[in-house]
């Protein structure tokens, strides 16, 4: 007799994987939380992979919270509305999340860091691609940022599940005040200045601390809100470290995955969902990565979301409301290009390679 004999089958690799297809594997046999499509309202933030989650949740009839919506007088042009629960754009690092929450909950003054584009319009460097049209003046950019921060807080008045996708450990920070940028100034907007901007690769203790503080900030104000963490399986576009993008990706993802695991174990209101494992685990044999071995295929996104709805919301594939894909189905077999376009996300990191 040994302790392993008492373990459930899922605890054994050969049994969990077995001869199951990727859509049959039960990746998450011991979830902390399950959710109701009717009663639970979700909010999302995080790296570009989080956009898939937001879109699929909406498409599948999940309740999705968007607090920052266009005013009726605002132009109907695409200007960052609805991609996430507020117009913050991709949030790649946990440090950035923590600072956003601190500002929104009044724990620190709003961070104002603007740049003017060649066309004369102004950009908020803390969300440079979240508002594609930019602003007519610096005064308007500042006023919108202050409004945006108030809307970030409002998310939690409606949402009772906050899903955050951890993306990167490599970040750029402001030398004087230490805050994190989503992207190195000079890539999407602004001008890089080595006296003002410095590279930082967050260590495990730093990520853990930022993640704990972020969760505690939300829980202090909104104790009924559950937090669901995921780690993005999308690999780095580029690394500032002198060890190559492959190693840097592995280090970053390992740190993020460990931090998510520790925080989940320590906080009763935090759980983890294995998007990262579904896509990049050896059982998938790389099938869910595109040809660049970096980005995720539509089939991978579908596998993640199908499993999420099955395991966390007890909704089978027959029950799934897929309004957008149903439209494709009505037109006949969807073209691969159409599907690819449907699953396109705005990944700011791409700019690093251009």
């Amino acid at each position, binding site marked *: 007799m040994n302790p392993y004999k008492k373990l459930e089958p899922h605890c054994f690799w050969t049994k969990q994987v077995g001869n199951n297809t990727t859509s049959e594997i039960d990746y998450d046999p011991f979830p902390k939380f399950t959710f109701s499509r009717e009663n639970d309202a979700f909010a999302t933030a995080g790296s570009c992979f989080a956009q898939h989650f937001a879109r699929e949740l909406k498409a599948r009839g999940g309740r999705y919270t968007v607090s920052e919506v266009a*005013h*009726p*007088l605002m*132009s109907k042009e695409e200007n960052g509305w609805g991609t996430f629960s507020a117009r913050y754009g991709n949030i790649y690092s946990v440090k950035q999340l923590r600072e956003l929450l601190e500002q929104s909950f009044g724990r620190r003054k709003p961070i104002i860091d603007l740049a003017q584009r060649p066309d004369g319009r102004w950009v908020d460097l803390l969300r440079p691609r979240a508002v594609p049209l930019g602003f*007519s*003046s610096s*005064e*308007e950019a500042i*006023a919108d940022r202050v*409004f945006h921060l108030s809307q970030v807080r409002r998310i939690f008045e409606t949402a009772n599940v906050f899903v955050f996708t951890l993306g990167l450990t490599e970040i750029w920070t402001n030398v004087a005040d230490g805050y994190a940028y989503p992207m190195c100034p000079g890539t999407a907007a602004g001008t890089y200045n080595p006296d003002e901007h410095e590279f930082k690769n967050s260590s495990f203790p730093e990520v853990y601390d930022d993640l704990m503080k972020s969760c505690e900030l939300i829980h202090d104000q909104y104790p009924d809100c559950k937090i669901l963490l995921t780690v993005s399986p999308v690999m780095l576009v580029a690394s500032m470290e002198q060890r190559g993008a492959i190693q840097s990706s592995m280090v970053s993802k390992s740190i993020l995955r460990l931090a998510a695991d520790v925080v989940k174990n320590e906080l009763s209101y935090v759980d983890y969902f294995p998007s990262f494992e579904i896509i990049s685990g050896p059982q998938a044999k790389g099938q869910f990565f595109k040809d660049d071995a970096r980005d995720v295929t539509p089939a991978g996104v579908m596998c993640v979301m199908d499993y999420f709805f099955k395991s966390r919301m007890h909704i089978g594939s027959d029950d799934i409301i897929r309004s957008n894909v149903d439209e494709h189905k009505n037109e006949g077999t969807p073209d691969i290009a159409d599907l690819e376009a449907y699953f396109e996300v705005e990944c700011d990191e791409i700019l690093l390679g251009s």
Partner: protein
Amino acid sequence: MKPLKKIGLLGHSHSVCMLDSMDKDWRDQLPSQEKSPDERYPETHQNWFTTDTKDFVVDIPSQKLNEKFAVEDTDLSLYPIYGATAGGNLTTCTLDAAGNKQMFLTEVYNSYLKKFKDYDYMISTIFGNDHAFLAYVDNLPGYDFLELGNENPNPLEKQFRPIDQYDITKFMTGYTDNIVHALYCATSMNPNLKIIHLLPPPPLKKPDTTIFKEILQPLLEEHGILRPSLRLKLYNSYCWILSKKLTEFGVKVLPPPPESFTKDGYKKMSFTDGLTHGNAKYGELCWRQIFKEI
């Protein structure tokens, strides 16, 4: 003998005060119509929605103009476009097969422009109330914006959501385009015609000072009245956008007469005729401005 200068006025409801200041009895010449009192409007605008004024004109002979305004050798014709004239939109825009915008004159507007073929001046008071709904009715989530065309605008009010000037401009352009397209067509059809467009009167600071809320009556009751500071910004921004666009193709734009403004930029009660219109006294000041310009 000096040739007579021919001036014509073409306008919607903002032409009423212009006619009233010229000839208080002009309504006796209107086509007969069923009288149906409308308590939302003052006496001057009764039957506005039931009278078809196509082909209707009030001619003011040069002698009368001379007596009233000391203007010599000038004939004036006034063409008001009442609400029932099917002259609501003077132009229409459609897309051709390639998706290009094609602009057409309505039949009614085409007939008016043909009348102006031999005129020296067109005084335009077309439209002008397009933005009034936005400026008076408080039915939108609270907002503020930086006034367009003002180099030192008042700062944004912190308690309201900021709207970028880009969005305000785009929204207002939907209103100003009706005027811009119509007058552009007029200049194209009659390149020798000089056009003067008169901007509408400024808004009232307190709409409740008049009982005649016009078509906005039920909406004001339902939604309440927008704060005056925003109303004035909307009006000033509308005028700025319109002026900028019209002057680009040679239309002369005249603001309301300065005597009609209060010191903080609203319409004086003494020149008011209903919520959005000026009275005959106001019309007279406008004419004096116009003749000075001509």
